C-alpha cells in the first residue's frame, strides 16, 4: 500500500499573529513557520502504518512557495520516503490545492491520502473533502483512530456528539485530528538522511491548474479586544445584568 500525505507550511502555532497595517493580510516576514500541526499527525500515522508492515511507501507532498519545501524535508526526516513540492506563489485556496493533489494522485496512484483535518492559518477544513469529491473516493474526516484492515479502513471520527466509527474502502482520503497520535521528534541522524532523500519539484502551471484565487478578500482585521469582566454580588444581579445589559436572556 502506498500513502500520500499532504503537508502545509503555516505560521507556527506559538507565534502571535499580527494583522498588516493596511488590512491586506497578516504579517509573515521574520515570522517562524512550521508544519501545520495536524499534518504532523497525518505523517506520524502513515509512518506507524508503514512500520507495522502495512504500507510500502510514503510520499509527502506540499503546495506553496519555495520555502514550503521545508515541511516536506521535515516529513522525510520522520519517515516519509520521498517528497513532491508543487511550487505556487501567493495565496492558494483549498479548491486549487485539491485540484493539484488530484493531479498528483493520478500520477502517483496512492491507496491512501492523509492530511490534517484543517490548516491553522485559514481554518478552511475543505481540502480533504474537495479532493474526495474530485477523485470520487470515500472520505473519513477528523480521524482520531485508524485501523488498517484488508482493502478497508476502520476509522474513528471526532464528531460533535462523541465518537463515530466508520468503515471506508481503499482508496480513501483521511483527514487527521490532533488526537490521532503523538508525532515523534526527528532525530539528528534522520534529519541528515532526509537531506539526501529526493524531492521532486513541479510548477503548478505544468500541471495545467489555474491557482488564481476565486475568493476576493476584502479586509483582514484583528478581532475586537475583549472587555474586562465584572464581578457580581449575587444571582439576582447576574440575572438582572444578563437581561438588561447584555440582553441575552
Amino acid at each position, binding site marked *: 500500500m502506498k500513502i500520500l500525505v499532504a503537508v502545509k507550511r503555516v505560521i*507556527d502555532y506559538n*507565534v*502571535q499573529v499580527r494583522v498588516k*497595517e493596511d488590512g491586506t493580510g497578516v504579517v509573515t516576514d521574520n*515570522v*517562524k513557520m512550521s508544519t501545520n500541526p495536524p499534518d504532523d499527525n497525518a505523517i506520524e500515522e502513515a509512518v506507524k502504518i508503514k512500520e507495522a508492515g502495512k504500507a510500502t511507501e510514503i510520499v509527502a507532498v506540499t503546495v506553496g512557495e519555495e520555502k514550503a519545501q521545508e515541511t516536506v524535508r521535515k516529513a522525510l526526516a520522520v519517515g516519509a520516503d520521498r517528497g513532491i513540492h508543487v511550487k505556487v506563489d501567493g495565496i492558494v485556496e483549498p479548491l486549487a490545492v485539491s485540484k493539484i493533489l488530484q493531479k498528483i494522485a493520478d500520477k502517483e496512484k496512492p491507496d491512501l491520502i492523509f492530511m490534517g483535518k484543517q490548516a491553522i492559518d485559514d481554518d478552511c477544513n475543505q481540502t480533504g473533502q474537495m479532493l474526495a469529491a474530485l477523485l470520487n473516493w470515500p472520505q473519513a474526516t477528523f480521524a482520531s483512530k485508524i485501523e488498517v484492515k484488508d482493502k478497508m479502513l476502520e476509522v474513528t471520527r471526532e464528531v460533535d456528539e462523541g465518537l463515530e466509527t466508520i468503515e471506508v474502502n481503499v482508496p480513501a482520503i483521511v483527514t487527521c485530528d490532533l488526537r490521532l497520535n503523538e508525532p515523534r*521528534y526527528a532525530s539528528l541522524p534522520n*534529519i*541528515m538522511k532526509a537531506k539526501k532523500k529526493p524531492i521532486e519539484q513541479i510548477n503548478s502551471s505544468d500541471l495545467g491548474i489555474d491557482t488564481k484565487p476565486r475568493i476576493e478578500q476584502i479586509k483582514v482585521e484583528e478581532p475586537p479586544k475583549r472587555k474586562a469582566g465584572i464581578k457580581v454580588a449575587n444571582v439576582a444581579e447576574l440575572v438582572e445584568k444578563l437581561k438588561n445589559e447584555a440582553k441575552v436572556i
Partner: protein
Amino acid sequence: MSREVMEYDVVVVGGGPSGLSTAIKLKQLNPDVSVCLLEKASEIGAHILSGNVFETRALDELFPNWKELNAPVKTKVNKEKFLFLGKSKSLSWPTWLLPKVQHNHNNYIISLANLCRWLAEQAEGLGIEIFPGFPASEVLYNEDGSVKGIATQDMGLDKEGNKKDSFEPGIELHAKVTVFAEGCRGHLGKELIKKYDLDKGKDPQQYGIGFKEIWEIKEEKHEEGLVMHTAGWPLDKSTYGGSFVYHAANKQVFLGYVIGLDYKNPHLSPFDEFQRFKTHPSIKPIIEGGKRISYGARALIEGGLQSLPKMYMPGALLVGCNAGTLNTPKIKGSHTAMKSGMIAAETIIDHLKENKNLSSYEDRFKKSWVHEELHAARNVKPSFSWGLILGIIFTGIDQILFRGKLPFTLKHKHADHETLKLAKEMPKIEYPKPDNVITFDKTSSVYLTGTNHAEDQPVHLQLKDKDLPIKYTLEKFAEPAQRYCPVGVYEIQNENNQEKFVINSQNCIHCKTCDIKEPSQNINWVTPEGGGGPKYGNM
C-alpha cells in the same frame, strides 16, 4: 546507555554571531573541514535578542562583499542623541562631548536575529551542517580529561524523567575541537570555566539584563537612522543602566533598557523600571499612538577584559559572549563576538593541520583589534561602581582625555549574586500599574515572545536546594526571583497559609538572569527540550 555517535572535525555549540562566524571562517579557510553547528532554538535567530547598532568591522573581514550578498545591514545611523533623564526633565548631551567609542556614524541599525539568519544561509551554502532545535546538554570528556564533544538533549521525557512514546535519545557528537558559542552565561560554558579553572586570577564576571521591545510608530514621529541613548531616571544613581531607542526601517523603533545585575536593592524590578522608563516625557511621545509588536529580554555580559576567562582548554574553545567579549562602553558585542569566532577558526585550522596547541588562540586574540578595544574599554564599567556621577566624570577623563590608556586597571570586586542587600534594609519601590497602552504587565509581554515549552517535560530551572527560596531567600531578600525574572517564571503563592515557590518554566525565555542573580546561586539553568523557548522574529 549507548547513544548514537556522529563525528566531525569541529562541532560548534550555538548559532549566534560568534558560532556562525567560527563555522563560516573554518570553511572559508579549508572547505574540507567538516563542521556541524547546533542551535537550541527552533530556528536560527529565534533566541537572538540584541539592540542592535552594528559595527561592520568583523563582517567586512568575513564577507567583504556583504552588500552584494544582500546582508540585512541596511539602515545607516544618521543622527545621534544622548539624554540624561531626570524625573520629568531631560538634558541633551552634545554628542561631540561623548567618548569616541560611543560615536555611531559609521554603524547600522540592524536586527541581529535577521543577520544571524543571513549568516546561517551563507554557512549552509558553504556546506556547514546546521541543526536548529538541538540543544547541547552535556559536555563529553576523553579519558585524558580533554573535551571530546557534546551530547544533545534527550527528547520526549515526562516531568519525572520517564520516557514517553515519543522518546528520542540524544546523540553524541565527537569532534577534534568543540567550540562553545552559547552566548552570555552558556550553561556548558559555565561548567567548563569551573572544571578547567578558566577564570583563575580574573575578576568576577559582570552581567546586565537587557530588555527590548519593538514598536511600530506613527510615520510623523519616525526618524529612520536616529540612535538615542539615555542614562538616569528611573534608576537611582547607584544603579548602572540606561536605555536605547533606535529608529529602524519600516516605521519600527527598537526600544530597550539595560540594567547592571550588580544592583543592590532586592525590591528593584528591572522589568518595571523599563516599563516606567517609557512614561518619561522625552520617550512617551515617540511611541504614543504606536503599537508594541515584540518583547524580549536577555542577560548580557559586561565584565570585559578583567573578567575574561582563559578561552582555550584541551579540545575546546570559548568564543563570543560565552567567554565575554562584549565592549561595554561601546554597548556592542556583535562585532567582537564575530571576530573572536574568526580568530578561533584560524587557530583551529592550524591546530588540525600542524597540530599546533590551541593555546595559540589567546596569542592571536591578544594581537587582534578585539583585545585592543577591550583594553581601552576596561575601566569604564568598574568606575560606575562609585555611582553615576563619579562614573561619568572618570569615564570622561579615561575615555576622552586618555582614550582608555590610563596606566592602571580598575577591578570588579563582587559577583552579581553577592551584591543584594537585605530586603529590610532597602526601600520598597512602588511601581505604577500598567496602562496597557505604553506600559504592560509580564503576562501580556511573554505572550508576544511566542514562548512555549512542551508541557510535560522535566523542569529545566533546577533548584540545588528546593527549600531555600521559602526558608531563606524569601525572608532575607523578599525572593527577588519574582522581580528579576523578565517574564514571571518565579512566583510565591500562598496555599492554605503556606508559602510556596512556583516555577512556571514553560514561560522561560532563556535569558539566564536567574542563574546569575540568585543570591545563593541556587538556580541552575539547563537546556530544556529542543525547539522550546521564545520564537523571536526580528529581535
